[in-house]
């Protein structure tokens, strides 16, 4: 249920650019809900973004992502930086609802005017973040936040979307979680720019650190060698070292301009294609929603009067997709019966 838009889009954009919390918060809601007005607003914000440092924090459930995020807020504040936090928690696949509780761990900043914490529900999206996350980052960027921390849903192995949005992606691991085979799995290990073994007071912490270091040992010269750092976020230990590694990664990113440009181009292409796909999908779905006779067709199928395949072809034919499908079918036949 998208809330009533009290303020005009002009006012929301102007407010966001002036750093107004309520305007920015409402704008993130409109983006999250996919409101058409949000598109117009984002269009106008686009030329004002690109100043913030975006840090992704990902890792398995219970690794301490929220607690580490809390520590990084504190560290950024010590440098006088303003901070935006986007904390993503899963939506229930059954009800669509969600309990968003990450911010409890960041309660000490509840009244800090330079800190804006926003919870997002994954809303059926897989990949650790939500489709609205990029838009929300841009809103926080446009309102002038210096550092934006994005905490993902607790991820497993291939939920790596965050790496496309963040300048630096931190993978939080805990001792004892991964044996050798686990650690070799593709995905999360490939996208991390720096690795934090949290809860490092546990006896097997050094083993996990050693294993991860071994994975990254053969980094070719000139490439970013991923640091593996120990931390105890609950006791605020190891945070300065992480902050330092983020700074070093920034230096590397600036020196590795060609590689960075390629990554930027690839990310831009993915986003553009996804926007185009979304637009197309919405237009087609609108057409389908307006299609009468679906309920009658269901009744016929259930009554055994027609088959679901024929009905699908018929409806798609009416929407003028029938021909393409027949051509596809013909093409498949050619392949199936060569000669």
């Amino acid at each position, binding site marked *: *249920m998208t809330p009533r838009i009290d303020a005009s889009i002009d006012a929301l954009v102007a407010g966001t650019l002036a750093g107004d919390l309520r305007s920015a918060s409402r704008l993130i809601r409109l983006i999250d809900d996919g409101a058409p007005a949000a598109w117009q607003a984002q269009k106008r914000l686009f030329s004002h973004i690109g100043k913030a440092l975006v840090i992704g924090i990902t890792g398995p459930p219970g690794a301490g992502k929220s607690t580490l995020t809390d520590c990084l807020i504190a560290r950024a504040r010590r440098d006088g930086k303003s901070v935006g936090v986007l904390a993503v928690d899963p939506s229930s696949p059954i009800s669509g609802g969600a309990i968003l509780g990450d911010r409890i761990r960041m309660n000490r900043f509840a009244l800090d005017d330079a800190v804006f914490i926003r919870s997002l529900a994954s809303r059926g999206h897989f990949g650790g973040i939500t489709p609205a996350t990029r838009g929300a980052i841009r809103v926080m960027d446009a309102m002038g936040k210096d550092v934006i921390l994005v905490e993902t849903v607790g991820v497993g192995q291939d939920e790596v979307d965050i790496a496309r949005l963040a300048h630096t992606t931190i993978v939080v691991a805990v001792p004892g979680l991964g044996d050798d085979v686990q650690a070799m799995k593709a995905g999360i290990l490939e996208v991390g720019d720096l690795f934090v073994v949290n809860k490092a007071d546990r006896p097997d912490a050094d083993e996990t650190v050693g294993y991860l270091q071994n994975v990254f040992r053969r980094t070719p010269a000139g490439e970013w060698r991923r640091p593996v750092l120990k931390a105890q976020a609950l006791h605020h230990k190891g945070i300065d070292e992480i902050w330092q590694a983020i700074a070093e990664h920034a230096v590397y990113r600036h020196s590795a301009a060609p590689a960075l440009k390629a990554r930027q181009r690839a990310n831009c292409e993915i986003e553009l294609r996804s926007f185009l796909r979304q637009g197309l999908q919405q237009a087609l779905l609108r057409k389908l929603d307006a299609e009468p006779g679906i309920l009658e067709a269901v009744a016929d199928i259930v009554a055994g009067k027609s088959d679901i395949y024929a009905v699908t072809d018929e409806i798609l034919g009416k929407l003028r997709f029938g021909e393409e499908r027949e051509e596809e079918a013909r093409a498949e036949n050619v392949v199936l019966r060569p000669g």
Partner: protein
Amino acid sequence: MSAIRVLVGVLGMDQHEVGAVAIAKTLRDEGMEVIYTGCFNTPETIVRTAIEEDADVIGISSHSWEYLYYMPELIELLKHNALDIPVVLGGSVITEEDAASMRAKGVAAVFGSGSVMANVVASVKSLAARDTAH
């Protein structure tokens, strides 16, 4: 895709979290997004969080007398910030008399001991709908 966003928390030194967790889970199962702030909130932190999260409704769970002190303060603070966010109060310790006084002070709905969960859900839904365009 959109969802009702409800902030659920406990005020003051009240440490009785079970009711808050139960209502949070119920609202989640009704398809709502619950921003759960746990215990030890003040009216200031609740208001600030409601702004940051663009909450449609604020739900306060209370199992201590403190609500008598904090709730009017919360309502005043919302008014002071020109925020039109309805507040729902629930808890075992709320007497009929105090419920009436809370309503008079601007609390949108009060649920005392023996309340039916379905009624709480219906109340949150209708209060959220009041503020929506579709």
